[in-house]
């Protein structure tokens, strides 16, 4: 096995890097810029049963070292994704992770059931942490019992491994992580965005039409590292780490904190080639730091 390959349930990744959900649509845009087979995996935008229009614009606002978004899970709906988006991805042989969301447990179950049957879907990412929708989303992610119940239900209908995407907007993320592990989650994705807001001084109103949005980018990296480190002490399932990864060192920092693979979100907007570039730099940087294989450094910070 290559020094940078990583193996997670359902995900045999030639390198640890995937784009983060919502920052890469269904792959077609970045697929015009480079060969998506270079990625360790591809994580696509949240899918819901019905088509969603999302929030009114403006949907993004810049912040120091980061950005807010309030897309509101806009997506063409399960049927369209099954018929158009996933088939387009068939030409790639890199694992596909589908992020799923819903208003109710039944919604989630329906999407999971259908999506997990698709032969080129390797895993589901259960989004219980979207801060930008009124119902569903984050409400499932802030209470351990609710999160565990949803995980259990989705697991019962999914043919592929389920990664639960955790919200950082909680008092005790370890409690939620252990609860979903107990409910059968195959892995965790962390972190989703932090709730934030910005005000336009000229109007006195929030810049985002949705008022609040999710904070992503470099600014949140230390929060992500801390949460992954804390969760790593208490759970055994793999973690896909994300939140402010821009540079090759960030990948290593996330893995030392306890991540088994990583996802890159906001950085794609700054440099559309960031994923393949980071992958290219990885081995050189490992050499400089004397790291043999990536799997050897996972969770090193808590040794």
């Amino acid at each position, binding site marked *: 096995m290559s020094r940078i390959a990583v193996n997670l349930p359902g995900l045999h990744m030639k390198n640890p890097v995937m784009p983060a959900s919502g920052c890469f649509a269904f792959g077609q845009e970045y697929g015009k810029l480079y060969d998506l087979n270079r990625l360790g995996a591809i994580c696509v935008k949240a899918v819901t049963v019905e088509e969603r229009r999302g929030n009114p614009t*403006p949907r993004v606002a*810049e912040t120091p*070292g980061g950005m807010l978004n309030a897309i509101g899970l806009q997506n063409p709906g399960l049927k369209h994704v099954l018929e158009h988006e996933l088939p387009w991805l068939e030409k790639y042989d890199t694992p596909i992770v589908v992020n799923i969301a819903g208003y109710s447990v039944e919604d989630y179950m329906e999407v999971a059931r259908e999506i997990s049957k698709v032969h080129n879907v390797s895993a589901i990412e259960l989004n219980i942490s979207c801060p930008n929708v009124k119902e569903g989303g984050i409400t499932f992610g802030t209470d351990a019992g609710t999160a565990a119940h949803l995980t259990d239900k989705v697991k019962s209908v999914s043919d592929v491994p389920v990664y639960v995407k955790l919200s950082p907007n909680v008092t005790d993320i370890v409690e939620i992580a252990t609860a979903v592990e107990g409910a059968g989650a195959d892995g965790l994705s962390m972190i989703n965005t932090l709730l934030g807001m910005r005000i336009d001084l000229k109007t006195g109103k929030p810049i985002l039409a949705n008022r609040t949005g999710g904070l992503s*980018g470099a600014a949140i990296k230390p929060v992500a590292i801390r949460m992954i480190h804390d969760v790593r002490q208490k759970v055994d399932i793999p973690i896909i780490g994300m939140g402010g990864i821009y540079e090759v060192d960030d990948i290593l920092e996330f893995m030392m904190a306890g991540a088994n693979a990583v996802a890159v979100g906001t950085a794609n907007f700054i440099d559309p080639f960031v994923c393949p570039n980071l992958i290219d730099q990885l081995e050189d940087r490992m050499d400089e730091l004397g790291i043999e294989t990536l799997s050897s450094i996972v969770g090193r910070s808590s040794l």
Partner: protein
Amino acid sequence: MIMDNMTIKNQEEIAPKIYRIEVTGPLTQQMKNPGQFVNLRVSKGIDPTLRRPISICDVDVEKETLTMIYRVEGKGTKLLAEKVVGDEVNILGPLGQGFPVEAAKPNDVCVLIGGGVGIPPLYYLGKQLVAAGAKVITILGFRTDKDIFLEEEFQELGELIITTEDGSKGVKGFVTDALKELKAYDLYYTCGPKPMLKAVEQTASTHGFISLEERMGCGVGACLACVCDLKERDKTTGKAYAKICSDGPVFLSGEVIL
């Protein structure tokens, strides 16, 4: 290639807070469609985080120069204005779907209607329309006479009508006040603030092409930050929305809900 460092060859303030910047590099070879834009990175670090979308104002493919005109609004454009000749700027582009020059037949009368920093992309468009044999009438709206820029350049393309809100030059009022007075034309192309676009769409007697603005994340169609609603679902994709960065910024009049 879609991203490259380009070198600043010229930068000057041509009106209060309005800068013309000229950069050079092989990326210009692809910049043939007026109305497209580029997404600029104004600093190397994380501050600011996002790229800034700026329209293509003019391109000299032989000399490999790209001209842009921008207004200093906030942090990003301020940093851009501080850059000097010889500095590099990372540019992602050309992006989006520009103005269709081929929509104008030879001898068609085309009205270009621009307001504020919506004016720059109309210049490259006007040049191409003239080259294609169309007749160009331009209406440019400014707040006051001090704000006027690109006057001579547009004059060379055909008739130019300037409107100012305070009447300090040209027609007093808005671009639509001048548009109303125009007799016969075949189509229009417009870019500017949304209220202006709405007014133009209502006032114009023909169809036309409208260029929109929206806050962007990725600029390439991947994040869904910049959507607008379509009046009718797109027949091929079945989608009820369009992405301004990749499906636009230019749309047919009546196509999107302004």
